[in-house]
């Protein structure tokens, strides 16, 4: 059920004179792995899936599945299945017949297709709901049926196009758990598209960040968090502190002062980025001292903005770290969490 997907130089221009929706994407999805394509809306991430599924033709580039070039192969013969943002269950079929659809169009007898469909419904936790019409299901159940239907097609690659973004937060969590569970049991190759970094982190082995149709960075999510290749990657993953300055001999000089860097960095201008969750209140020695200008809360965690010499430093503190606006605080920026993004010309 798992194949190896390789996208090479994949480009799609929707109309003459328009900028490419996708520009020379190279991406490998090893068999049995889950790669998330992360990007803001309009970044071309859904285009990646449509080109992979064969729903659109690439302007340039190729899609290889298990080494076979899929150019000119229609969607129904590609061995991929796709779950869309909307469940798109066929309204005239029951939940069971929706899941049995792929088997039926391949000519399997109704009885066998329905028996297999019941197994897949069981797999997504919907045993006993097979007789229901799609309109009798909740939105979470509908998306589970859509997932079961795609899995029942036994694709070599499962394409997920923001399949959980229309669900509310608890349901989304539930679906994430389900997908993790399904990955452990079936080991499908998954290419997931999402605009939610938390979803990418929860589900994917590696994350490919896409912006304006171009691949910005591809790697494990921890690497993307710790060492973003650009400010846009840092911002997309929730990084907020950006301190312009100069790097000299492995030290970043800025209005925050001289801050030593963890590894070798080329001398020259560079923007220091530090993840908000890495920043902590300093008990003793402080790397940075400033005035709290804003306090918000995410659950119990205070999200604090500190003005340090005209530079905003953002920190996600631990519950119980009660600070108030106007207070002067010292912050620790752990050396390992400091990362410098080169300044791009232009």
């Amino acid at each position, binding site marked *: 059920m798992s194949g190896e997907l390789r996208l090479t130089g994949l480009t799609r221009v929707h109309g003459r004179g328009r900028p490419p929706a996708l520009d020379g994407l190279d991406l490998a999805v090893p068999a049995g792995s889950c790669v998330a394509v992360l990007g803001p809306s309009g970044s071309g991430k859904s285009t990646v899936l449509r080109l992979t599924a064969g*729903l659109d033709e690439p302007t340039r580039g190729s899609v290889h599945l298990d080494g076979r070039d899929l150019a000119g192969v229609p969607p*129904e013969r590609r061995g*991929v299945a796709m779950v869309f943002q909307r469940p798109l269950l*066929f309204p*005239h079929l029951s939940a069971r017949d929706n899941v049995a*659809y792929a088997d*039926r*169009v391949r000519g399997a007898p109704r009885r066998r297709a329905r028996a297999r469909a019941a197994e897949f419904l069981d797999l997504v936790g919907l045993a006993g709901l097979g007789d229901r*019409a*799609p309109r009798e299901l909740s939105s979470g159940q509908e998306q589970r049926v859509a997932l079961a239907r795609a899995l029942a097609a036994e694709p070599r690659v499962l394409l997920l196009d923001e399949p959980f973004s229309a669900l509310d937060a608890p349901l989304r969590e539930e679906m994430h758990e389900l997908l993790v569970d399904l990955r452990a049991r079936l080991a499908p190759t998954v290419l997931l598209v999402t605009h939610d970094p938390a979803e990418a982190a929860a589900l994917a082995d590696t994350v490919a960040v896409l912006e304006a149709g171009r691949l910005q960075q591809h790697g494990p999510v921890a690497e993307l968090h710790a060492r973003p290749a650009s400010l846009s990657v840092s911002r997309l993953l929730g990084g907020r502190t950006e301190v312009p300055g100069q790097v000299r001999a492995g030290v970043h000089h800025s209005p925050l002062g001289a801050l030593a860097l963890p590894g070798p960095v080329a001398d020259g201008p560079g923007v220091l980025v530090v993840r908000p969750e890495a920043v902590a209140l300093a008990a003793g020695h402080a790397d940075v001292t400033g005035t709290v200008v804003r306090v918000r809360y995410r659950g119990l965690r205070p999200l604090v903005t500190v003005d340090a010499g005209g530079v905003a430093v953002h920190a996600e503190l631990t519950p119980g770290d009660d600070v108030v606006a106007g207070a002067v605080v010292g912050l620790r920026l752990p050396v390992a969490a400091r990362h410098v993004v080169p300044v791009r010309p232009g």
Partner: protein
Amino acid sequence: MSGPPGARGRRTGLLLVLPALVPVVAVVGAALTSALLAALGLAPLVGEPRLTGAAFTAPADQLASAVPLSLAIAAAATAAAAAVGLALALAAVATARRSRLLGALSAATVPVPHLVGAAAMGLLLADAGFLPRLLGVAPEDWPALVGGRWWVAVVAEYAWKESAFVALVVGGVLASRSRSYGETAAVLGAGRWARFRTVTLPLAAPALGAASAISFVYVLGSYEVAALLGRAAPEPLPVLAVRLSTSIDLAARPQGAAVAVVTAGLALLAVVLALRALRRLAAWG
């Protein structure tokens, strides 16, 4: 205090359709009531009102041939219109992004009156018409399409006109839904024909059924095309009703009303059957 939301919603819905409902019920109700009264002898042009079923029994022979003929014409025209309309809708949806010409062409047929359509069809299909001349066929060798045994011109005119209506209704439904469901089916392994059979056709079915039912009832009760392009005997129901209702024999006029009542009854039956079938389809639509 307000009532339960369901009841309130129904009441609001009823109030909203009332302006459309009142004139329809008034006109159709008045027409049907007067036809029924006339047919039952309760509203005679001369003499005393007397309840009788004579107007229904007197033209029994003519009714016996008119009912199957009218049903056959309506069924044939509707089947052709449904097939052509569906094909037009599919073509329009498939090419919607490239060209609106097809949609415009099929929609252009809708405002053409049936009378004009009938006249055009007569000029086209008659034995001395445009088509045999174009094809170089002598009038005596040309089949009797106008006024012939098989009512070809009548069925063709209705099918031509109603197919545009079917295409418009079905195209509207398919335009909003067929692409996303079609793509879903494709990535699940359904080829072109399987997609048409298992997705497009079921999606179009409620709209196709409703448009076909309207078309069937319309053709069943429509007069002018059958009168212009049909043969003198046997007559379909509307032609028979009009001839009897305008007869110089005043005693025949209640029979015209009786034929009209029978036609209305058949139309009503068709509507009830269609609604029952559509309710099953619309349950998922």
